[in-house]
């Protein structure tokens, strides 16, 4: 047990150190992009758009933009870190050692959560320069932020397990994640959509996360928040098991 705890600390330390050391690649881009979103959509166009659900447009998009950067940063942290661990073969250092599969998953996913949360805080901090932020439900905000970071860190891990080229680690983020995020109600309320698209949108898990997160900030949501939590917690549990099982079998790692 003690061995596993220290091994976990070692992996976490290494992972966090990794993204902090290369912060111009890992932290800065999110700050710049989201600063621009807030400036253009929020501050400049937002005045024309007016309010959604009774809040100014700028305030409306802040939660979604924040969660969007949590998603992309958690995902890309783990997918690139674990893929290069595999590619350079130093995953063997962990496999030879008495580290359990659960600890390896927890270490890499923990690194992804740390980056997701840090970037989320940076983006929120930038948003605070544009508007007066208020938080309606801290526990919802923290809970959904962490769960989302965990879920997409796990997804990045699984992507890295299956990837066998650098192309394969950019396909999912570009062609699956980005569309789901943009169609996930970051910039609009699904109440504005025709009924059919409203229903289709409800099948997108990111929509539920974004709305629950927005509820944490503003106290408004297009979907029931408790159901969103159950959905995301269930998905996180399923991906945890899947990641563990893949590592246990040595998929993509052991011949």
């Amino acid at each position, binding site marked *: 047990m*003690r*061995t*596993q*705890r*220290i*091994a976990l*600390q*070692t*992996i976490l*330390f*290494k992972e966090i150190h990794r993204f902090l050391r290369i912060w111009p690649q890992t932290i800065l881009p999110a700050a710049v992009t989201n600063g621009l979103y807030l400036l253009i959509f929020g501050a400049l166009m937002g005045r024309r758009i007016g309010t959604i659900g009774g809040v100014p447009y700028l305030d409306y998009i802040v939660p979604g933009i924040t969660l969007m950067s949590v998603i992309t940063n958690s995902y890309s942290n783990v997918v690139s870190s674990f893929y290069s*661990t595999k590619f*350079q*073969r*130093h995953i*063997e*250092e*962990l*496999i*030879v*050692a*008495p*580290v359990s599969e659960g600890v390896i998953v927890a270490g890499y996913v923990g690194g992804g959560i740390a980056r997701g949360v840090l970037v989320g805080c940076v983006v929120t901090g930038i948003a605070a320069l544009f508007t007066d932020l208020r938080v309606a439900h801290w526990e919802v905000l923290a809970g959904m932020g962490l769960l989302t970071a965990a879920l997409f860190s796990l997804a990045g891990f699984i992507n890295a397990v299956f990837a066998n080229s650098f192309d394969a680690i950019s396909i999912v983020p570009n062609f699956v994640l980005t569309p789901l995020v943009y169609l996930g109600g970051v910039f609009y309320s699904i109440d504005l959509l025709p009924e059919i698209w409203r229903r289709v949108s409800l099948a997108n898990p990111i929509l539920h996360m974004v709305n629950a997160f927005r509820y944490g900030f503003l106290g408004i949501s297009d979907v029931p928040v408790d159901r969103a939590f159950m959905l995301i917690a269930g998905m996180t549990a399923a991906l945890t098991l899947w990641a563990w099982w893949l590592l246990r079998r*040595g998929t993509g790692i*052991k*011949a």
Partner: protein
Amino acid sequence: MSALSLRELRKTYKNGFEALQGVDLAVPAGEFFALLGPNGAGKSTMIGIICSLINKTSGEVRIFGHDLSREREAAKRRIGLVPQEINFNQFETVFNIVVNQAGYYGIRRREAMERAERSLRQVSLWDKRHTVSRQLSGGMKRRLMIARALVHDPGLLILDEPTAGVDVEIRHSMWEFLRTINRQGTTVILTTHYLEEAESLCRHIAIIDHGRIVVNSRMQELLTQVQTHRYTLELKQPIDQTPVVDGFVIEPVDAWTLRAELPPGTGIHRLFNELGAQGIEIHGLRNASNRLEQYFMQLVDHRRDSTQEA
């Protein structure tokens, strides 16, 4: 007690290739053991399975009595691996690589740093501790992998071709170092294609070919089986015709050098006398190849002949 014991170990790769066809092997604790065999014989496959890097198809692996499948943690703790190919993070510093590895074995950071220092000093890499590993020379990279493998004090150290691409001086200091840790109680298993290395270091030898152990014997016993002795003779004057001496096979190397093969039980002085009678004076004499190499060649030839007959 065996440091390593393998029973009926088999590996069939996904493409259907049978790399190990039932390997049984026991390496007693404290041994200095050579695992030899031609390219593709299955050495790295066997080591990969012992170190959990490759999934076995069937069979049993025990490390100091701990079953690798059932008592994973206890078994893994006792192994240190120096793999055939570089497998550390090329963007990490030498020191961090070793410290992290200690962490994976549950060693607290403070102690991990002390041990990393000790390990790196042992392989003369302490000066390079802040260097990014990518910038090390090939021989330094090998030594880094040795330091990393020893940081948790394993009872069994497995080295897969540790001296490939290492210069003579460093190779000798590496040998000295391996002898020292073996004397201090670490069991060492080594694969190499330099047979003089195996002959000079190891007390026991196993030869694997096509996924089977074909020889498993004490080095001394094995060397007495070497039947012929081959010598290189350096001549005082050049010759233009190869001499013929009854009972010896003599081949020219160049005008100043001959190679002679002596059947077992023949004294070399008869060769000297006969050559002297023909007016050829010998200026120097040395072994044409070391004995293990001769044994190895005999074995490989023999196996090739027998498979052709079959």
